[in-house]
C-alpha cells in the first residue's frame, strides 16, 4: 500500500518541470485560463501513452523504446532516436539551469555560479544512489508544488471570472489568434513530454514490474498525471490572478513564484522555491536518464542501475557526457527561459514521431498477447496522435509568424 501511494505521489511531482513552470506562468499572465483546456487534453494524452508504454514493459519486461527497434526496424527507430535525443538534450540544459535559477532566487547568488555546483551534485547522485531512491525523493519533495493550489485560494479569487476564463477558449482582447495558437502548441510541448513516457517504462524495468503490478501502474498514471495537471492549472491561475490585469508578462522564474509569496508570505515563497528546486532537479535526472536509456536501448547496450557502472560502461559514459555537454551549454549564458520555450516547441514538433511507434507496438499482438491495446487505448491514442500531428506541423510556422510569441 505504501509503495502504491509513493509511486502516485512521485508521478504528481514529476509532472512539473521547467517547461511547465515557464509556460504555465507565461500563459496564465497573458491568456488567463483560456488555455487550461490544453492542459486537460495533454494530461489525457500523456497518461494514455505512459500507460501504454508501461503496459508494454509489464508484458515484455523490456522498455517500450527497446521494442521499437525490434519490431519496427533500425531506420525508423533511428529517426525517433535522433528527434527525441535532440529535444531531450536541450531540455537537460534547461532543467539544469532551472535548478540553478531556483537557487539564485533563494540566495541571490548568480545562477551561472550555481550551474557547475548543481551538475556536480547530479553527477554524484546518479553515481551513488539507487534508481528508486532518487525518483522517490524528488517526487515527494515535488509535492511541495501543491502550495500553488493553496495559493489560488488565498488570493481570494473571483471564482466566476476564473470559471468564465477557463470555459472561453479564445484569445482575450489583448491577444491575437496566432499568439494564442502558438501557446497552444507550446503548452502541448511542455506537458506531453516524451521523456516521461520512456522514463516511466524504463523505470518499470528497473523496478522489475510484472503483470501483477499492472493495477499499481494504472493507479499511478490515472491519479498522478491528472493531479499533476491540476498543479499546472494552478500555476496558470495564480499568474492570471496577479499579472493579467496589470499587464505584466512573465519572463523569469521569479515571476512564476511571486504570486505564491503574495498569497502566503515568505514561508509560501520558500515552499514554492523548494518545489521548483525539486521538480527541476528531478526532471534533470529524468531527462538525462531518458536520453541515456534510449541510446543504450537502440544499440542494445547494458544500461541502468541494476548493475554496477563498470558493467554498463557505454551507457554511463553517454549519461555523464551528456551532463557535461549540457553544463557547458548552460555556461554559455544562453537565456534559459528562451531555451526552454524553444525546447518545448521543438518537443511538440517531434511528438508524433515518438507516439506512433508506441501505438504500433501496443497493438502488436505477437508481442503483447492478452495485454494488447483495447478500444479505449486505441481511441485515445489515435486522437492524441492526431492532435499532436497537427500541433507538430503548426509549431514551426507559428514560431516564425509570432516571432517566438512576441506578437
Amino acid at each position, binding site marked *: 500500500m505504501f509503495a502504491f501511494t509513493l509511486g502516485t505521489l512521485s508521478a504528481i511531482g514529476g509532472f512539473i518541470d521547467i517547461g511547465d513552470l515557464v509556460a504555465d506562468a507565461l500563459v496564465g499572465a497573458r491568456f488567463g485560463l483560456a488555455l487550461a483546456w490544453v492542459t486537460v487534453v495533454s494530461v489525457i494524452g500523456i497518461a494514455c501513452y505512459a500507460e501504454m508504454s508501461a503496459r508494454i514493459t509489464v508484458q515484455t519486461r523490456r522498455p517500450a523504446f527497446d521494442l521499437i527497434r*525490434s519490431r519496427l526496424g533500425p531506420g525508423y527507430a533511428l529517426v525517433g532516436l535522433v528527434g527525441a535525443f535532440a529535444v531531450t538534450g536541450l531540455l537537460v540544459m534547461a532543467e539544469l539551469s532551472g535548478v540553478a535559477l531556483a537557487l539564485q532566487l533563494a540566495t541571490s547568488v548568480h545562477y551561472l555560479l550555481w550551474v557547475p555546483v548543481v551538475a556536480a551534485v547530479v553527477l554524484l547522485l546518479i553515481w551513488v544512489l539507487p534508481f528508486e531512491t532518487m525518483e522517490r525523493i524528488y517526487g515527494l519533495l515535488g509535492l511541495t508544488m501543491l502550495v500553488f493550489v493553496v495559493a489560488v485560494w488565498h488570493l481570494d479569487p473571483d471564482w466566476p471570472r476564473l470559471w468564465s476564463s477557463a470555459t472561453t477558449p479564445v484569445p482575450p482582447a489583448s491577444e491575437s489568434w496566432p499568439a494564442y495558437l502558438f501557446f497552444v502548441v507550446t503548452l502541448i510541448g511542455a506537458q506531453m513530454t516524451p521523456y516521461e513516457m520512456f522514463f516511466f517504462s524504463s523505470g518499470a524495468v528497473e523496478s522489475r514490474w510484472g503483470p501483477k503490478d499492472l493495477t499499481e501502474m494504472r493507479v499511478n498514471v490515472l491519479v498522478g498525471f491528472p493531479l499533476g495537471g491540476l498543479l499546472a492549472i494552478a500555476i496558470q491561475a495564480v499568474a492570471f490572478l496577479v499579472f493579467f490585469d496589470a499587464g505584466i508578462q512573465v519572463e523569469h522564474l521569479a515571476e512564476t513564484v511571486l504570486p505564491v509569496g503574495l498569497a502566503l508570505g515568505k514561508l509560501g515563497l520558500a515552499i514554492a522555491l523548494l518545489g521548483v528546486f525539486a521538480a527541476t532537479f528531478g526532471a534533470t535526472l529524468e531527462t538525462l536518464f531518458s536520453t541515456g536509456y534510449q541510446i543504450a536501448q537502440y544499440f542494445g*547496450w547494458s544500461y541502468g542501475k541494476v548493475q554496477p*557502472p*563498470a*558493467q554498463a*560502461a557505454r551507457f*554511463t559514459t553517454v549519461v555523464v557526457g551528456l551532463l557535461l555537454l549540457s553544463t557547458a551549454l548552460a555556461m554559455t549564458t544562453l537565456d534559459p527561459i528562451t531555451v526552454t520555450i524553444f525546447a518545448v516547441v521543438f518537443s511538440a514538433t517531434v511528438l508524433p514521431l515518438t507516439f506512433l511507434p508506441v501505438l504500433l507496438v501496443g497493438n502488436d499482438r505477437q508481442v503483447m498477447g492478452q495485454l494488447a491495446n483495447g478500444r479505449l487505448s486505441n481511441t485515445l491514442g489515435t486522437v492524441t496522435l492526431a492532435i499532436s500531428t497537427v500541433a507538430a506541423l503548426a509549431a514551426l510556422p507559428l514560431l516564425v509568424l509570432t516571432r517566438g510569441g512576441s506578437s
Partner: protein
Amino acid sequence: MTDHHSVRFTLLDQQVVDADGRRIGRVDDLLCDDPGPGGEPVITHLLSGAEALGDRLGGLTGKLMAAVSARLRTTPDGPSRIPADLVADHADLVHLRVRLADLPDVAGLERWLSAHVISLLPGAGDADQ
C-alpha cells in the same frame, strides 16, 4: 541455423544477451554462407556493433555511423562477429551459450571504456562479476 521464419522478425535487430543474461548488443547484421546452386544460405555469424549497423543502413547516416565506429574499433578487421553456433536460442532475446568475457572481439568499446575510464572511479564496481 536453418530457420524458415523471416529473420527480419526473429533475428535481426534483436537484443543479444550472454550466458549471464547481460546485454551485449543487437544483431545488427548477418553473415551468410553461400552454399552454391540449389542449397539454402546458412547463417554463419551474427554481426554486432554500430559499424555493422551503419553498413546495413547505408545512405549518408549509415556511412557516418560506420566510419565513426570503425575509428573506435579495437579489433583489427571488420565489425564484431559472433559465430552462429554460439546461439543457444533466439525465441525472444538472442541468448548466447558463452559469457561476454569469452568473446574478446565483441563489444570492444564497452570493454575499453570500462577498463580505462569507468573502473578508475570509486564505486564503479567490477567489470566482470
